[in-house]
């Protein structure tokens, strides 16, 4: 095991796959010499050279269009979109082209393509650089969507995403880049579509993603210590495919479900989980299904307001506590 930061794990995951597959290439804005604006691609240019790790003009639609064109010839590509907010300027390529072209070629053409992007708030970047947009990606048929919360999962899911024959949107959380965790020093390969029970419990299930996972864990510890409430925390990790088995089994055990999302309230991914559990496990429930979300607002730039808007440890703690009372 080695201790890596989440940002180092991004580079480690890419490097692991580029060593394994000499045809794998990467492109994006400032990913080469600069090592990425979030320093998530440091060292890759030196190891793999300028043909395989390539800077681009500020052209998000072209980054993804070129990645798509190359991938359909069998060249696997990792493309970086610097901030996930910028997915909006290349959404045509994602939603209309990348997501639909296997379908429109009767399944003939594969697009082995990973779109990496820095997602999420709590970093004081303001409304246009802080959004959590994994729900945008989740609602487009033909895309796979993952968002790791730990360095180990970052490496494992990067490998799984690169090896998948379908396009994967890979959400890296900006406010997790500095966090640390143990990563095995052997080849690590995860699986898409597997949630992880990161804390076992019996009174309530809390499903969280990315930055919300450590917050849910901290809230769960406090609920145990201060209230004697035993909370099971699920790191959803993969929104498409979605691991409904793990979710439903957990709710069957605890009879309560809380989702913790950074998405603004309307149509966040938690709504989908709640809907599935409401339909499939209604008779297992002992109380309302509860969403803990950001309000339906552009994310404020002011630190105090941003902290208020995004679900906090306190809010998770209070919501679960008052609901179970």
């Amino acid at each position: 095991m080695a201790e890596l930061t989440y940002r180092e794990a991004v580079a480690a995951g890419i490097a692991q796959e580029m060593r394994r597959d000499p045809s794998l290439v990467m492109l994006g804005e400032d990913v080469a010499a600069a090592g990425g604006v979030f320093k998530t691609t440091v060292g890759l240019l030196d190891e793999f050279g300028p043909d395989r790790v390539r800077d681009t003009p500020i052209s998000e639609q072209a980054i993804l269009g070129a990645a798509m064109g190359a991938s359909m010839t069998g060249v696997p590509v990792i493309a970086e979109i610097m901030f996930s907010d910028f997915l909006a300027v290349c959404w045509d390529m994602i939603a209309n082209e990348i997501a639909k072209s296997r379908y429109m070629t009767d399944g003939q053409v594969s697009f082995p393509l990973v779109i990496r992007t820095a997602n999420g708030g709590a970093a004081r970047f303001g409304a246009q650089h802080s959004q959590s947009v994994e729900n945008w990606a989740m609602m487009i048929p033909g895309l796979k969507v993952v968002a790791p919360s730990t360095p180990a999962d970052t490496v494992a899911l990067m490998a799984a995403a690169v090896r998948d024959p379908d396009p994967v949107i890979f959400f890296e959380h900006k406010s997790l880049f500095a966090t640390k965790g143990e990563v095995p020093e052997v080849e690590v390969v995860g699986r898409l579509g597997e949630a992880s029970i990161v804390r076992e419990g019996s009174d309530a299930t809390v499903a969280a993603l990315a930055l919300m996972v450590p917050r849910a864990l901290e809230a769960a510890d406090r609920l145990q210590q201060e209230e004697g409430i035993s909370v099971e925390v699920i790191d959803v990790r993969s929104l498409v495919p979605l691991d409904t088995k793990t979710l439903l089994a957990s709710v069957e055990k605890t009879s309560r479900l809380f989702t913790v999302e950074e998405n603004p309230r309307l149509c966040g991914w938690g709504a989908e989980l709640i809907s599935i559990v409401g339909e499939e496990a209604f008779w297992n429930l002992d109380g309302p299904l509860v969403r803990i979300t950001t309000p339906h607002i552009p994310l404020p730039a002011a630190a105090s307001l941003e902290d208020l808007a995004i679900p906090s440890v306190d809010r998770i703690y209070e919501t679960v506590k008052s609901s179970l009372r």
Partner: protein
Amino acid sequence: MFSLVNPDGTVRDRLPISIEETKSLYADMVESRVYDHKSMALQRQGRIATYAPFEGQEGAQIGAAAALRSDDWVAGTYRDAALMWKAGYPWDLMVLGRTGDERGGAPPEGVNVLPACLTVGGHMIHAVGLAWAEKLKGSDRIAFTSFGDGATSEGDFHEAMNFAAVYELPVVFFCQNNQFAISYPRSEQTRSQSIAAKAEGYGMPGVQVDGNDVIGVLTTVTEAVAGAREGEGPSFIEAITYRMGPHTTADDPDRYRDDTDAEDWAAKDPLLRVRLLLEKAGGWSPEWQAELESTAGERIEEAVATAEAVAEPTVGEMIGRVFAQPTDALLAQLAEAEE
């Protein structure tokens, strides 16, 4: 504007191809036009969905495709059926696609022609990616992408042109300036003197060619392709042509353009001038014309019959081609749909 054959069939310069080769290009244009007319009729009969005719643009499309190698990449639009066919995409799959069937979007093995792009402009960037991949692989395949004058106002055009130039990729950008983006005329589309002039801003050569002169187009595209193949990077061609028909079967061009324009352009028809040229050279006769049309008619009828004989797609196909392997959620939805 470069051109070799005038509208009256007289020749401006020595032709780079033989009379036999010219006859072959003419036959391809005749077959394309038969397909185009047949498709319009099929749409009117309710046998295919909306159709975008290319009548008047056969010279640009057949001439360009004739300049490509069989393994080069071709990325065109919904108005490029003649180009795609000449590059290897079978008529029957194009008809199948127009009947509303994704199986029409799966070309045979070895045909490097993308299914027609239905969004405006995205495929120009796909061509950039195809060329990038070929460069990475060290092959000498090039990517050829065709689009209309309207598409040059899309951001995709700018991003594709700039990206191809910066990466020095073997892409040939081929604009069929057919004077209208649905109803919006070329004069309104851009204040640029020409569309070809835009190429200079991207640091690549840009030329204009008479798009209704199939031999002129063949010559121009051949040169651009050779440059791309030899590592000179991308280039841009504006083929000046005219869409004789409507934008699609869903609109009426009489509402937005003058009859006199259409008459002027009819005199510049790409088939007519080659016929006149061949006539002068003793290479055309009414009997041969009748034979061409009848052979083409049979082929197109056969393609339509092949497409219409394809069995209805299944519910399993509806679900099964979303991903390489369907997710559990999709399988559950398939089971629901089959109930």
